[in-house]
């Protein structure tokens, strides 16, 4: 029988949450191993839009988002490599036929200011002077100068490599098929029979996490969805902020950003189902078409560009679109951070630092009560 690989903390799932937690644990001198079915950062963490935006999140989430923001700003020094974080700002706009959104923006800005997020409300000439490429249907925009965007393909692997440099054990191509608590330790078994053990277990397995939590009596229903993403050919760099639409109608919620290379990444609008058991997510062509349609309205000049590629990934949505984050309700030593419901990228590094803090000290100042698993399961 092969030797059991041990560490202080075992993490199932090598996405941005798992890799950044391993990094911050390693910084604290706590050994962690990340067990990843495929390669780190390849699922939702690597295929999302790349928005590093705080506005639009629930106000109670802003302390976590602020923590993440500080990490993004220092990412290069912290990780020793570039994750293409561009602090070009973020603007959220509304269309003319929804003027009530201006009031909502003002209300949100007032509350956000108390949490340290400054938002500037722009309308008419001021808006067009600053962002001349916005379409005539755009009525107003809420601008955050201190947000931006980064490259999802690079972020989670960069955290994994940085964690490994600090001694974390990043174990790829390793699907955990069984986990249980035996005495004080969690015992994990991989598909090929290899075994791992640790006194603390963190589940950061995205769309797959509901099933794994179920092994401990905490079955969480997660809906696997597939975002619709596209990228254009490169054009001269001209658009600094990430741009998105505020609307209650999902099909209108498009967004875009321009990377330094010049390509414009398009996201949002209708999501498709995805298939976690097969590790497959497909872009439905009809969704790309509605995405283009709403983008043309948001920024008509983009109509002239050519889309060279579409892609998707596998995201796990909870029923209330808030993550499950914090200690287990049933098993001591077990922690969760999953179900980020299509909006986990920006807060990812903040989640990592917070989970590391929680595991190391038993507490955190970041309000995480709204993410308690007791929303879905009873405490034992």
């Amino acid at each position, binding site marked *: 029988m092969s030797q059991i690989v041990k560490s202080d903390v075992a993490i199932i799932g090598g996405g941005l949450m798992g890799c950044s937690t391993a990094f911050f644990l390693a910084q604290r001198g706590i050994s962690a191993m990340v067990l990843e079915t495929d390669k780190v950062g390849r699922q939702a963490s690597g295929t999302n839009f790349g928005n590093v935006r705080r506005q639009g999140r629930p106000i109670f989430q802003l302390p976590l988002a602020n923590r993440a923001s500080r990490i993004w700003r220092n990412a290069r020094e912290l990780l020793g490599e570039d994750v293409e974080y561009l602090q070009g700002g973020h603007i959220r706009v509304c269309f003319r036929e929804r003027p009530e959104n201006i009031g909502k923006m003002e209300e949100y800005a007032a509350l956000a200011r108390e949490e340290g997020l400054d938002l500037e409300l722009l309308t008419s000439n001021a808006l067009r002077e600053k962002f001349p490429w916005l379409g005539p249907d755009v009525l107003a925009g809420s601008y955050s100068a201190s947000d931006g965007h980064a490259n999802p393909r690079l972020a989670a692997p960069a955290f994994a490599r940085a964690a490994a440099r600090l001694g974390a054990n990043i174990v790829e191509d390793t699907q955990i098929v069984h986990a249980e608590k035996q005495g004080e330790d969690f015992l994990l078994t991989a598909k090929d029979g290899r075994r791992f053990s640790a006194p603390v277990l963190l589940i950061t397995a995205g769309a797959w996490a509901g099933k794994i939590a179920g092994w401990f009596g905490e079955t969480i229903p997660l809906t696997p969805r597939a975002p619709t993403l596209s990228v254009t050919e490169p054009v001269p760099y001209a658009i600094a902020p990430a741009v998105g639409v505020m609307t209650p109608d999902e099909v209108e919620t498009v967004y875009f950003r321009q990377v330094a290379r010049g390509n414009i990444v398009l996201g949002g609008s209708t999501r498709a189902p995805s298939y976690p058991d097969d590790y497959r997510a497909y872009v439905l*062509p009809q969704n790309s078409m509605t995405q*283009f*349609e709403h983008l043309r309205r948001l920024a008509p000049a983009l109509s002239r560009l050519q889309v*060279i590629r*579409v892609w998707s990934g596998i995201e796990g949505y909870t029923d209330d679109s808030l993550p499950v984050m914090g200690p287990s309700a049933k098993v001591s030593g077990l922690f969760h951070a999953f179900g980020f419901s299509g909006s986990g990228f920006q807060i990812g590094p903040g989640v990592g630092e917070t989970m590391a803090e929680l595991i190391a000290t038993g507490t955190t100042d970041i309000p995480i009560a709204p993410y308690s698993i007791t929303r879905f399961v009873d405490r034992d």
Partner: protein
Amino acid sequence: MGKPAVIIIGAGPAGVRAAQTVARAGLRPIVIDEAARAGGQIYRRPPENFTRNHAELYGSEAARAQAIHQDFAALEGQIDYRPETLVWNVADGHVWTAKDGETQAIAYDALIICSGASDRVAPVKGWQAAGCYSLGGAQIALKAQGCAIGHQVIFLGSGPLLYLAAAQYVKAGADVAAVLDTSPFWLRVKAAPKLAECPDLLWQGVKLLADLKRAGVPVLTGVEPVEIHGDPQSGVSGVTVRHKGASKHFAGDAVAMGWHVKPEAQLADLARVPFAFDALTRQWLPQSDAQGRAGNKVYLGGDGAKVAGARSAEVTGELAAMAALADLGLSVNAAVDADRRRWLLSEKARYVRFAQGLAQAFPWPHHMVAAIPDEAIVCRCEAVTAATLRASVQSAHAQEANRAKAFSRVGMGRCQGRYCGHASAEIIAAARAVPLEETGRLRGQAPVKPIPVALKRIDL
């Protein structure tokens, strides 16, 4: 219930024969083609008002070209022909077309993909200079537009198209500076038994070589490309190769380069056809049975499935259409069909052996690609060097093609890896010291070719 909907993609030799076969069974197939006029790349026609005749345009293949053009013209009224139309996606039993800024989804009961082939190119240091064309591109310029790619053209690569295109340039009056073949001559001798499957084609090859030599064109075999010289302002100025241990320089203002062609298999990929690694040609190919059945109502014909040339494409296009009709329960006369199928399959086998002979005689220069200098650009769309690609393997631990793409941007540009995919796989495999097939293959993603954000859906 109406008649089954059959869609044929491509109007080259395979698509034309498939369309004829389906129309003969009383169906009205939709034939979608990117070009303005049928014929495919091999029998591509110049615009209507050009006056060069078939003999001038297609040389020894003039009769075949004429037959394809005429037979397709005769289908008028029996088919729903949609020229200048791109199929940019296949999903959920529908093809998605794009034309003049409009898109529509068209359902099919059988989809026959005859998507043809495109140039297989290997990176050479300096190949990003203006004036570097693929061999096929150089040939199309001549065939469709009656112009040469430069005043003094260097042909670099391997395979029959290298000699054919060079000879066509000479015949058209262009100055061919040199023909530089990376394959050593003795491989041709070794492959002769397989090449003898098509004696007339073998003879044509011998004649082409003689024509080139008679015209005083230097023809070198067994060369190793060193560098394409040039600068961003004036483009290509020459090529340096190593030949028999010595460095040789040829001056020229354009380079036509290519190592055979490879299937345009992106649509098969989007239609979720399985792929398998082909050790002889060192690439992943879509899989189908001998008649072209690829599963899920998809059929493959012509060079889009496996490269075996235009004559073979006529045979495999017809076979694929016959398989589709049989699966739809539309065989007109089972006994006649069986005889025809047997003959087509034996013809196909002959062409496949000939194609294997060509692959052996003029191999893809994988050792040269794997050893390309660090400073050479591998991905021209994104201007990524071999050094960056190698670093993604060595320091970022990319183990396969998609991961290396995510880290290095190789294959992320306009061509979506069409022109750098094979080369980057060789470089990744060499950096990891593993067999090529372990580096996987770039996942196909829509659109097959760029589509505008302005594209409007019109079928709702």
